[in-house]
Structures are given as structure tokens and as C-alpha cells.
């Protein structure tokens, strides 16, 4: 009878574990992946596979170097979520070394150097994205034109050729890439074109009345809602984030519609929904108290709007998240819930 190990109650568990949670997140991203393939072609599949390969190599070597058990930590799949989040932010036809260096940076500098899962203060995916955006601004802003504009998307082989060789023999880079709507808007505004004009100019075709970007966002929304309902993520994050963003957009659009785009555009462009359900919900780097989650997500929403409209970059999600990551300990400190039987403090 081995009684040396004293274990404490409870002796029951709901059989939830980190791997299951991460798998659910991965599954929730599936609709968006499908939409992405349909609208932008198979580039993302190759990017994703590249990222997964990077994740396996990097995780394995880092865990070995750190002297940690490899299998349990690799199989928790948290790194998979990180690289998946990153892949959605990278142009589908970007060169292969972009995604590889981005993923490696995200995992090594974003996670392992801080002590691995659970100890990183910054969202690794966003750290990787920020790194790429600053290091390779050209490659990172050349997005593939969606289906609604070009009328066709690249196949797997063509994408692979572009990603690994820089160009397929049938296409050149410039033929199928351009700025994202957010980038377009920013450029036009600097040229003195109003926001409304830019949006109404409508260079993009419409699928069932919505742009390709809106469809991607809706796909993320679908997966995200499922995660909220099944309890994988807290409702506070998307609600506060989208609420704050919409609020900002509404106020400024009312003030000057020529300069500031309408709410619908703000919510369904760029990585808004990706961030709302998949990125800011990363529990490790987010606030943990219920009220803290609201504050944290609200802060990101406001910062995103500020950076989009007055900053140097077309989309500010990565920077907004990294900035709020810094504030997390402070938020947690001041949003502690009232303990049963204790009086409300302040």
C-alpha cells in the first residue's frame, strides 16, 4: 500500500483539461479558415502548415533546452492556437520566411523565454505579429485580393510557388495583391479623400451584399459565439471589446462622417472579430477577474480605434493588445471581486 503521497480532496474532476480547451478553440476557428480558403485561396493552408511545422520544431527544441518534459507540454496545443492566430494575420501569399520567423519569434520570445505556458505577460501571437509588421512592413501589408475582386483565387500549387519562390510563372505579385480596406482607407484619408467616398467608391465586389472581409469576420463571430456558449471563453471579452469599439466608432462617425467610417465597417473589417474571440481571450495574458476582463477588453477596443484612426498603422489590434497586456496586473489588483460575507470596498 503506497501511502507516501498524501493527496488532498477533491478526488473528482470534471475531466476538462488544457488540451481540450485548446482543441475547442482550434475547432472554433474552422469556419473562418473555410471562409478564408474560399475567399483568398489556399495560401493560408500552406502558411498554416508552415506555422505548424515551425511550432513543432521550436516547441520541441525549446522544451528540450529548458529541460522540461516534451510530450505533455507540446500536447497541450497552446502553441497551436498561438500560431493559428498568427497565420490569420499574415497575408496568405507572404513569403515562407515571414510566417516561419514570426511563429518562431512568437513562441521563443513570446512564451518560452518567460517560462513557458502560463508565465508570459504578452500575447505571443500578437508579439509575433508586431515583430513581423515592424520588420517586414512591405510583405505584411500586401494582402491577396479576395475572390470578389479578382474573380478567382489561387490554387494550392500556385500559392506554394508564390510563397516559396516569390512568384508563380503565371502571376506577379502585384497582380493579385493590394492594400486591405483599412489600409486603403488610411491612404485615401491622407490624400484628402473622405472616408465615405472611399467606402462608397467600392472597389470591392460584394458577396451577398457584404465584402469578403466582412464575411471572414462573420465566420470568426460564428466560431466565437460557439465558444462563448460552451464556456470556453468568457463573454466579457467580446462584449466589452466590441462594445467599446462600436461606441467609439458611433461617436466619431456622428461627429464627422467624412473622416470616420461607420460602425458596421469598423466592426467587420480588419481583424476585429478575430481579436474579439480568439486573441484577446487568451487567458494567460488577459485580466482574470470578471470586472477586470471588462476593463481590459474595453481598453483594447478604445486603443484599437485610436490606433486605426490616428496611428501610423492601418490596424492597431496587435499594439492595442500588447499595451493592455502591460496593464493587466494593475487591472487585476483593482478589480478583485467582493468575497462572500465581505463588505464592498470603495
Amino acid at each position, binding site marked *: 500500500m503506497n501511502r507516501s*503521497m498524501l493527496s*488532498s480532496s477533491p478526488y473528482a474532476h470534471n475531466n476538462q483539461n488544457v488540451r481540450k480547451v485548446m482543441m475547442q478553440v482550434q475547432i472554433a476557428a474552422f469556419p473562418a479558415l473555410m471562409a478564408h480558403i474560399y475567399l483568398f485561396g489556399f495560401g493560408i493552408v500552406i502558411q498554416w502548415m508552415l506555422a505548424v511545422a515551425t511550432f513543432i520544431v521550436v516547441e520541441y527544441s525549446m522544451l528540450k533546452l529548458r529541460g*522540461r*518534459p516534451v510530450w*505533455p507540454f507540446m500536447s497541450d496545443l497552446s502553441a497551436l492556437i498561438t500560431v493559428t492566430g498568427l497565420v490569420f494575420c499574415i497575408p496568405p501569399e507572404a513569403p515562407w520566411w515571414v510566417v516561419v520567423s514570426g511563429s518562431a519569434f512568437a513562441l521563443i520570445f513570446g512564451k518560452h523565454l518567460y517560462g513557458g505556458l502560463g508565465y508570459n505577460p504578452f500575447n505571443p501571437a500578437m508579439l509575433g505579429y508586431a515583430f513581423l509588421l515592424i520588420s517586414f512592413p512591405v510583405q505584411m501589408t500586401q494582402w491577396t485580393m479576395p475572390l470578389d475582386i479578382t474573380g478567382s483565387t489561387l490554387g494550392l500549387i500556385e500559392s506554394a510557388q508564390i510563397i516559396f519562390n516569390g512568384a508563380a510563372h503565371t502571376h506577379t505579385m502585384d497582380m493579385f495583391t493590394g492594400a486591405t480596406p483599412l489600409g486603403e482607407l488610411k491612404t485615401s484619408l491622407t490624400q484628402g479623400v473622405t472616408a465615405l467616398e472611399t467606402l462608397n467608391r467600392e472597389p470591392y465586389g460584394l458577396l451577398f451584399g457584404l465584402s469578403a472581409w466582412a464575411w471572414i469576420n462573420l465566420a470568426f463571430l460564428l466560431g466565437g459565439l460557439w465558444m462563448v456558449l460552451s464556456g470556453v471563453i468568457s463573454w466579457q471579452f467580446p462584449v466589452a471589446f466590441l462594445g467599446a469599439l462600436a461606441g467609439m466608432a458611433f461617436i466619431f462617425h456622428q461627429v464627422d462622417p467624412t473622416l470616420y467610417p461607420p460602425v458596421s465597417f469598423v466592426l467587420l473589417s480588419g481583424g476585429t472579430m478575430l481579436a474579439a474571440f480568439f486573441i484577446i481571450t487568451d487567458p494567460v495574458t488577459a485580466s482574470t477577474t470578471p470586472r477586470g476582463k471588462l476593463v481590459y477588453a474595453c481598453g483594447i477596443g478604445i486603443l484599437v480605434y485610436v490606433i486605426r484612426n490616428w496611428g501610423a498603422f492601418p490596424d492597431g489590434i496587435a499594439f492595442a493588445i500588447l499595451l493592455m497586456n502591460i496593464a493587466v496586473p494593475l487591472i487585476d489588483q483593482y478589480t478583485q471581486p467582493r468575497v462572500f460575507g465581505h463588505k464592498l470596498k470603495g
Partner: protein
Amino acid sequence: MIEAVLIFLGLALLFGILLGYASVRFKVEGNPMADQIDKVLPQTQCGQCGYPGCRPYAEALANGEAEVNLCIPGGNEVMIEISEITGLEQKPMAEGAAEPKPKEVAFIDEDLCIGCVLCIKECPVDAILGATKQMHTVIEKECTGCEKCVPVCPVDCIEMRPVEVTTKNWKWPEPQTIQEGK
């Protein structure tokens, strides 16, 4: 030029007033450092530091006359706390002193005790009861485990015994982290 000078003068004046106010408003009486150190010392009054008790050692530390690593019962933890309070550099504990041991209390073998009252005299906290020619006994609750009484006993009837673990003072062990291996 003149504006700049004036601004700086004004600022200097402002900060001066602020500092002056703060020094009056937040004045601390006495020697707070000695008190602080005295608070972290284990108060065994064992004298192993070379000072007659914990308070004198704290005062010596506050005056910068003593090393931070002299408190043997306190061990490393107290040394670190002291160095934090005094701002002095941390020093490793002397050989064999770093090992923290479970709390012990003195026990007098009452069959052997001859009632010499020597240990009573020695006890820094008056935790030994007894009278001349009558056996002595240790008030376990008040014994600090300083071991001062052990060497003075002429018949070696005092020994240090670890405090007994009962269901009342038993501690839940810290969970073992099973991070290694699968």
C-alpha cells in the same frame, strides 16, 4: 533666460516647501530601523549572535556595527530580511547554520534534576519553573528553544526535544509539483 531662472527658482521653492512639510508631517520617532529589525528577529534571545539578546543585536545592526548573518535561529530568511531593512549586502550564513531545523523546546529530565536553579537564571524568558532543591520544569509554551539552559546544567539533565506534532498543529504539506516526467 530670466523666465527659465524664475521657473526653476519657483520649482525649487515649491519642492522645498513640499519636502519641509513632509518632513514635519511624516516624522518618525525613535530609531525605526532597530525596531523593524527587532521585529523580524526570532526573539529566542539565544545570544548566538554575540549580543546579549535580540534587541541589542538589532540596535547594533541599525548602527551598522554588526554583520547581517549572525542570527543563527533566524537562518537565511532573517538574514535576507535584515539586509533588506538595513540595505547592507547579503552574506551567506556561517557553516552549519543555514540549515533550518524544526522548533525545539527544552525538556528537563525531572528525575535527574537537582534543583540548582542555574537554568532558571540562564533562561532569557523565564520559561523554567522551579525552586532551589526542587525539580524544575519547562513551560513548553514559553520556551523559545534558545538552548541556553543546556550547557549550564551541572547534571546534563536538559535536552532539546522537537515540538510534538498533533492533529492540532499538523500542517498540510505543500503539493508536490509533478512537472518532471509523465
